């Protein structure tokens, strides 16, 4: 501070200092003291001003005062103190001590450029000589004020958060006593925060005398880790309770913060959503149709498990594929083009029939319906829809059409077949009734034709009635009697030996005495049908073999011809009613009912019938009849003795 020109304290001192004569040692000591004192003042951070009370002017100021008030020191000294201190607005302490000479007052000092400096000002009355002075020591409290303001603001914000949240927030000490609770917590009990202090949460909220089982707050104090739990209170509300350990500066657990949120509505909403989802999922997964979703590229993003039943794929195998991956190539192109068109038009479609390939390779006809779905900007996201397996329906439709066709054909065939015997009956009877001269032999011959053809006609009518009865579910009325395998063949004698075809039949009946329990007339019908088919479908004179043998629990008959035979397709349908293996060959007569009736008769006996055939090689019809058990016949073992047979 040597380069500084210190303002002199008073006129006397200035006079003495300006003198050239050497100072007395005493004076020199005073001077040194004064300079040291000056340096101390100037080094102080506080503003120090000395004001004459009478003139109210600043008579001395330290370096901090000049610097902080932004005045050159020579300007500050001599200035009216009012330029710096606004005495008018000073808030003097109300309870000033009696006779006190110093006051501490927070105020603002005015800087040279007009700015204000917040300070804590110490004001003391002094007298030097007889002159009264005021000593002002002011400390800049800008920083302190800012820090205080910020702290206040931060506290206020924190308080605001804690107090305005819906969440119940409670601070517990290590013994779980409530230290502090926020507004929400207090209000939940209709109490104030202070009333909660020192109490226990379990007694306040749960009317218990001890902590709740698995209380997350207790656990967080014990473990030092956060814990949470969902708790349903008495009133049915669901709470999400979380406990956080609270540690002091040394890291020791001081207590725990409990945060408790009413999640009743959220839980209900979640539950409701879950219910709705479950409801739809149940519906989607229960219906027999396959429900799916594809994205805008046609890639499956969802499929119900029903795809397993329809196409044999697991849902996860289908996700990522397109519908066209599941179709035969021939089908995929057309359906893909159709789907592309729908995508562009963003249109729904329904009942699109398409052929798909089952995982096992066979074809499945599906009927597809779908609706587009969009994002909020109406951009197409994909399609959702259902697929129905219509394979069976298609087949049924086909079968129905086929059966309709066969019925029509049957009627025309039947009409034709009935005309044939009628031609003879009407023709010969007309001849017999005419006045023409006929020999007795001729008359007898013609009558026999009439009789024969009438019988044939009657047989056809019987067939039709049989079928009608079977169709209506009445079944065949069997009149079973015990007899032997041999006897069934013997009763065919009139048929086998009567006609011009007799030389064709070969018999090979083993174990003729095998006991059977059958309706003999119906069995004759079976044989006659099989034999007349054999005759019909084989060239004249070619052998027809009738064989019989025991086959396990059954007796097996077979009728084999060396005729035109049938293709496997024809064999498969031979037992269908109205089916005639070669419908185009209308010369082969028959209603197409015979084999259907034959099967019904055999099955009514508990037997089984099947046909083996090869085109050009001939046909063999086999049928099994169960062997008669002694007790079933009711007439003992020896059926040979039975007079009925």
């Amino acid at each position, binding site marked *: 501070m040597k380069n500084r020109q210190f303002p002199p304290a008073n006129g006397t001192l200035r006079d003495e200092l300006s003198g050239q004569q050497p100072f007395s040692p005493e004076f020199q000591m005073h001077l040194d003291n004064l300079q040291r004192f000056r340096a101390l003042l100037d080094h102080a951070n506080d503003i120090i001003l000395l004001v004459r009370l009478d003139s109210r002017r600043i008579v001395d100021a330290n370096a901090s005062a000049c610097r902080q008030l932004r005045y050159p020191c020579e300007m500050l000294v001599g200035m009216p103190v009012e330029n710096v201190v606004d005495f008018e607005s000073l808030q003097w302490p109300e309870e000033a001590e009696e006779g006190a000479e110093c006051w501490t007052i927070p105020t603002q000092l005015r800087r040279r450029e007009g700015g204000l400096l917040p300070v804590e000002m110490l004001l003391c009355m002094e007298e030097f000589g007889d002159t009264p002075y005021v000593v002002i020591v002011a400390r800049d409290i800008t920083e302190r004020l800012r820090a205080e303001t910020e702290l206040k603001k931060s506290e206020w914000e924190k308080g605001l958060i804690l107090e305005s949240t819906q969440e119940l927030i409670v601070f517990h000490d290590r013994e779980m006593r409530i230290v502090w609770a926020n507004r929400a917590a207090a209000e939940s009990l209709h109490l104030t925060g202070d009333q909660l202090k020192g109490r226990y949460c379990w007694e306040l909220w749960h009317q218990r005398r001890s902590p709740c089982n698995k209380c997350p707050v207790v656990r967080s104090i014990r473990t030092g880790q956060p814990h949470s739990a969902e708790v349903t209170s008495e009133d049915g509300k669901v709470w999400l309770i979380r406990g956080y350990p609270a540690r002091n500066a040394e890291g020791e657990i001081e207590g725990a913060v409990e945060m408790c949120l009413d999640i009743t509505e959220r839980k209900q909403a979640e539950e409701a959503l879950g219910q709705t989802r479950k409801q739809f999922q149940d519906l989607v997964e229960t219906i027999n149709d396959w429900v799916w979703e594809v994205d805008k590229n046609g890639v499956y993003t969802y499929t119900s498990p029903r795809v397993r039943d329809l196409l044999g794929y697991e849902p996860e195998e289908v996700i990522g594929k397109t519908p066209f991956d599941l179709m035969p190539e021939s089908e995929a192109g057309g359906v893909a083009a159709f789907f592309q068109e729908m995508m562009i038009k963003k249109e729904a479609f329904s009942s699109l029939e398409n052929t798909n390939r089952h995982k096992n390779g066979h074809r499945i006809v599906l009927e597809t319906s779908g609706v587009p779905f969009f994002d909020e900007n109406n951009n197409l996201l994909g399609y959702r829809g259902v697929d129905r397996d219509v394979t069976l329906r298609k087949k049924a439709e086909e079968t129905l059409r086929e059966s309709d066709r066969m019925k029509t054909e049957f009627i025309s065939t039947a*009409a*034709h077949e009935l*005309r*044939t015997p*009628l*031609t*003879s*009956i*009407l*023709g*010969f009877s*007309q*001849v017999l009734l*005419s006045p023409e001269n006929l020999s007795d032999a*001729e008359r007898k*011959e*013609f009558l026999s*034709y009439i009789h*024969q*053809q009438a019988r044939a006609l009657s047989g056809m009518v019987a067939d039709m009635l049989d079928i009608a009865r079977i169709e209506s579910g009445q079944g065949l009325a069997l009149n079973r009697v015990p007899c032997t395998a041999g006897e069934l063949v013997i009763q065919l004698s009139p048929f086998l030996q009567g006609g011009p075809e007799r030389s064709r039949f070969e018999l090979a009946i083993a174990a003729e005495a095998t006991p059977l329990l059958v309706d003999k007339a119906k069995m004759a019908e079976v044989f006659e049908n099989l034999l007349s088919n054999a005759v019909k479908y084989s060239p004249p004179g070619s052998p027809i073999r009738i064989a019989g043998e025991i086959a396990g629990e059954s007796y097996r008959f077979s009728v084999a011809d060396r005729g035109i035979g049938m293709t496997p397709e024809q064999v498969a349908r031979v037992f269908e009613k109205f089916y005639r293996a070669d419908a185009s*060959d*209308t*010369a*082969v007569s028959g209603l197409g009912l015979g084999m259907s009736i034959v099967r019904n008769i055999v099955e009514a006996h508990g037997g089984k019938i099947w046909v083996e055939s090869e085109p050009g090689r001939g046909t063999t019809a086999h049928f099994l009849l169960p062997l008669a058990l002694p007790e079933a016949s009711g007439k003992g073992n020896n059926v040979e003795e039975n007079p009925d047979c």
Partner: protein
Amino acid sequence: MLKKILIVDDQPEVARLLEIVLRREDRQLFFAANGEEGLAAARNSCPDLVLLDIMMPGEVDGYEVARRLKKDPATAGAHILVLTAKVREQDRLEAFAAGADDFITKPFDVFDLKTRVDRVLG
């Protein structure tokens, strides 16, 4: 002069009925039980009249027999009377298209048949 009638029908009793109805001193009857036999018999006998069934066993049905008879100059002159249980209009049209001269459905009136045959043969 002896008139020749060929009867082509696979059912013997029908053939017999026709024989009874049509037999006369001045007529000679021939019989065939299917199409092939019918064609062979026609070639051999050169009939004036053929009574022709349509549905018969074998490869050659009545329509085909009629067509071939009309094509063969040796038999083209024969009067063909189709006698069939086929009764639909289209069967009748097909028969005439194949060359039939007359068409009678089974069952038939024996006197009607007799009259028609007499008219053809005189």
